[in-house]
């Protein structure tokens, strides 16, 4: 069909990985453009003038920004290998957990990285509380999408990669095997799926990156 699909990303952005996974799962061919966020390309600024961030998906010269918006666009455009259930109530439930991941899980984990002292403790507590709810949601399922990866797995998939990196960087436990057996099993299962495994950024580089981010943030406080 000669469709032009391009993904603007960085080597490590967990948000961009979501787009990569969705396209790879649906077998869509695309060109990758790596951005240096300290020196953003004119194209990126043109395609995402509001947020100036990655990822951006370019499809037939039309740009789409915001990873979760891009996931829904991919789902609307390429209808094979669906990532969302057909039933409207189940779709609403999937979207609920995707939003939960963005609004509760991610900020708590991020703040555990960026804060210290009492603020870090509170962020860590909030993260653990959010994991309890994810653990509940996994009851009776091996993946959030059921038998196959769905949009919720893709949206939360950053946990499967970054949690162990951040546990090393912060010397802090997030997802204990005994406290969160289902979530731990999900992380292992997700990380091992070939399409997912092939696109993990190098772990040692990630550790270095997050150590640097934390040090830079603490230095400005």
């Amino acid at each position, binding site marked *: 069909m000669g469709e032009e699909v391009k993904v603007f990303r960085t080597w490590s952005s967990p948000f961009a990985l979501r787009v990569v996974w969705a396209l790879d799962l649906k077998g869509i061919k695309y060109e990758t453009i790596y951005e240096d966020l300290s020196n953003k390309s004119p194209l990126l600024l043109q395609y995402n003038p509001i947020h100036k961030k990655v990822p951006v998906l370019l*499809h037939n010269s039309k740009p789409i920004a*915001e990873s979760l918006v891009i996931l829904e*666009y991919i789902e609307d455009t390429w209808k094979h290998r669906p990532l969302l259930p057909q039933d409207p*109530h189940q*779709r609403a439930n999937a979207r*609920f957990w995707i939003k939960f991941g963005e609004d509760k899980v991610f900020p708590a984990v991020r703040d555990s990285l960026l804060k210290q002292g009492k603020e870090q403790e509170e962020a860590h507590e909030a993260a653990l509380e959010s994991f309890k709810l994810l653990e509940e949601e996994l009851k009776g399922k091996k993946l959030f999408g059921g038998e196959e990866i769905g949009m919720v797995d893709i949206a939360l998939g950053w946990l499967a990669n970054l949690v162990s990196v951040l546990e090393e960087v912060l010397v802090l436990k997030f997802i204990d095997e005994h406290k969160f057996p289902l979530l731990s099993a999900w992380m292992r299962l997700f990380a091992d799926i070939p399409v997912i495994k092939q696109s993990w950024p190098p772990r040692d580089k990630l550790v270095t990156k997050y150590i640097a981010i934390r040090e830079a943030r603490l230095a400005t406080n």
Partner: protein
Amino acid sequence: MAESDVKLIGAWPSPFVLRARIALNIKHVDYEFVEEKFGSKSELLLKSNPVHKKIPVLLHAGKPICESLIIVEYVDETWTSGSSILPSDPYDRAIARFWAAYVDEKFFPSMKGIAAAPNEEAKKAALEQVESGLAFLEEAFGKISKGKPFFGGEQIGHIDIAFGSLLAWLRVTEKTTGLKLLDQAKTTPQLAKWAETFCQHPAVSGVMPETEKLAEFAKLLFAKMKGINPQ
């Protein structure tokens, strides 16, 4: 379908509840409005939204749907009467979702920032954020509406609902700060006109809170919040 098949748990001042009401009105869905009492949460709410314990919650044949924009998409997918809320073209849908997310993640927090500002300097900074947000939305309106009255074109769409639901609170903010944020003459001529058209739409006019009534409620709300968090 029996009215009791569709219930909406909410409260009249909430812009998020308003989104759900407008969506249901667009689809001509009969529903029971279960009004939460200010300051307390009903058993039904706690049971229906155990994770967040927040309104709105849509109950359809007993099953709960939470989060206002998720409810709007659910209503659009479930009822085919009335007009479509999201466009049919995937790219247009992405644009609609992008701006709805912008309203929730950037614009609404900047509005809250004005009320929460601890001093004049912070208030000025928050106001500047709101003004720049409105400038983005003004430009977006021009591109997306393509000369039609709404972001959604001839009919109210997803962005109209996401942003329009905040208009009463925006007007309360104008009242308390003495500033014109939606300005016909200068900064946001298209949005000022759109706001009027939106508020007069039959799906909106019966449920949009009156500015005066909301301003009184706002006073009550802030007093209560200060009571809870003595500074």
